[in-house]
């Protein structure tokens, strides 16, 4: 991490953005928001941004800052859970597939090919539409889309690692396959996985926002950045802040994650060391 901060100014700015947004999201988890993000208050509709309402209020008199903060918390939660699930399942799949080869590889490869046969957003959309809708099922829908990506990203390096001397030596010392996989192979592909996690998080945030924009994300009244932007479409000229605030925040969140991912790639990927 410190290497990232020293070597990559882009990565550093990504970290700064994400820390600020994490603080905002933490406010919503800790219940420290200035207003209730859901409670309606009709008398104070469409108030312009001021000291009292940092980002103004919306058509129901709800505080936009509180809603955006809760929306960031919601997006982050879904993205983290989805990517964590995809990382664990996908990495395990890639390890087994590359290490055991044979039948396991064939079966896992078949499932991967099937999931890769869908445009990602369409797959997430279809899955989200058939599951009962709450934040967790949205996360599961997004996770299923990213599992094959992690499988493919890990399988290749595992295939080449198992031919390398120290892995062969470990085999000859009689360690079990699982010991070898986790002790000798996994640490050597960890940087690839870390980079993929950062990039996947940014896609997951975008996918979640797209789903809730289409009405297939976390159901209302829970605030979500995508659905806030959807509702703001018709309000742009009465209350532009209802569009600008969630729009700017979702872009900032994805920019932060992309910068972090790029920074990690520049720092960790051996092919990039010393280059640039």
């Amino acid at each position: 991490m410190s290497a990232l901060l020293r070597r990559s100014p882009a990565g550093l700015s990504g970290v700064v953005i994400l820390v600020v947004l994490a603080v905002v999201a933490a406010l919503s988890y800790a219940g420290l928001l200035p207003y209730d993000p859901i409670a309606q208050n009709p008398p104070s509709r469409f108030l312009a941004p001021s000291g009292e309402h940092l980002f103004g209020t919306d058509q129901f008199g709800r505080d936009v800052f509180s809603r955006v903060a809760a929306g960031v918390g919601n997006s982050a939660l879904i993205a983290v859970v989805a990517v964590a699930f995809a990382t664990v399942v996908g990495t395990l799949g890639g390890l087994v597939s590359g290490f055991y080869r044979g039948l396991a590889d064939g079966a896992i490869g078949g499932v991967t090919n099937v999931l890769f046969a869908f445009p990602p957003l369409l797959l997430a959309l279809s899955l989200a539409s058939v599951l009962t809708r709450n934040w967790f099922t949205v996360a599961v829908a997004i996770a299923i889309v990213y599992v094959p990506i992690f499988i493919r990203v890990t399988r290749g390096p595992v295939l080449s690692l198992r031919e390398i001397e120290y892995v062969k030596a470990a085999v000859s010392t009689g360690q079990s396959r699982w010991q070898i996989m986790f002790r000798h192979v996994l640490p050597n592909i960890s940087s690839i996985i870390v980079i993929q996690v950062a990039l996947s998080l940014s896609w997951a945030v975008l996918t979640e926002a797209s789903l809730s924009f289409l009405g297939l994300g976390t159901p209302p009244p829970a605030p979500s950045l995508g659905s806030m932007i959807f509702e703001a479409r018709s309000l742009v000229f009465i209350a532009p802040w209802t569009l600008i605030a969630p729009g700017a925040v979702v872009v900032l969140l994805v920019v932060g994650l992309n910068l972090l991912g790029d920074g990690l790639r520049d720092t960790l990927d051996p092919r990039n060391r010393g280059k640039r």
Partner: protein
Amino acid sequence: MRSLVRNRVVRRVAGTVGTLFGVAVFVFVMLRAIPGNQITANLGTEAAALTPAQQQALERYYGLDQPLVTQFFSWLGNMFTGNFGYSARAQQSVLDLTLQSLPVTFELAVFSIVLALLIGVPLGMLAASRTNSARDAAGQVVSLAGLSIPAFLLATTLLSVFAASFGFNPNGQGFVSLFEDPLLNLQQMFMPSLVLGFGIAAPILRTTRTAVLEVRSNDFVRTARAKGVPERRLQVRHVLGNALVPIVTMTGLQFGYLLGGAVVVEQIFSVPGIGRQVLLGIQQKEYAVVQSTVLVIALAFVIVNLLTDVLYRIIDPRVRAS
């Protein structure tokens, strides 16, 4: 040698057929996971008022009394004979709906890709022409923006700015096809393809930059320069020519994503494409429409990927030479 190539093609095609079968199973199972069935979807709460006899008759009519495996193969068999199901909402067969919506999405995808290439390739070459310079930084900013601004946000903003401020909203007056009114159609395609093209330009820009940098460090470029090839010809023929393979692969992949993945933009600009057909099916709970349309999209996606594979074999100078 020839039989080896043919074997690989046969294996690839067989693999693709296997994958498509898996896709069909997946789609079928996924839509069976929804609580309720065709009857409750059509009748809503009234389904509860059906007598057991009516219930049975309807189940027989929709084939729901058959075992799942039979239902699956009867659906798959119907797909092969062109019977994709019927949409009560549109009063049309799903085949007819698809024959109308697929060309629309295809047109949108072509325009988006062309715009993306026009933005991404020159900017990528420019960024690579001098690394760590101002132009490189500008390229990075453009690609970061393309990757980070969600399509629905850009689309919403464009639409409200153009429609409200300049009164320009060709998409507000009902979609026309390219053959009915080419000029209006092009206007209607303009904003959606701009939004999609901007998003796709980012990965194309990055791929171009990396590929050009990679190719330029090769010995043959130095040799070509040493033997006096003019700089312009060197950049286009030697560098870009060899960098084309990853660019084409990336373009093909992105083109595939647009089939169905353009759903958000199609929805915002009321473009009646195939992604919107799925979305409407989901919203109207017409699962027969969703099931068949998703399968068609997966088929199209797989075909596009296959064609990309073939195409890059054709354009790769190394493969071409041998």
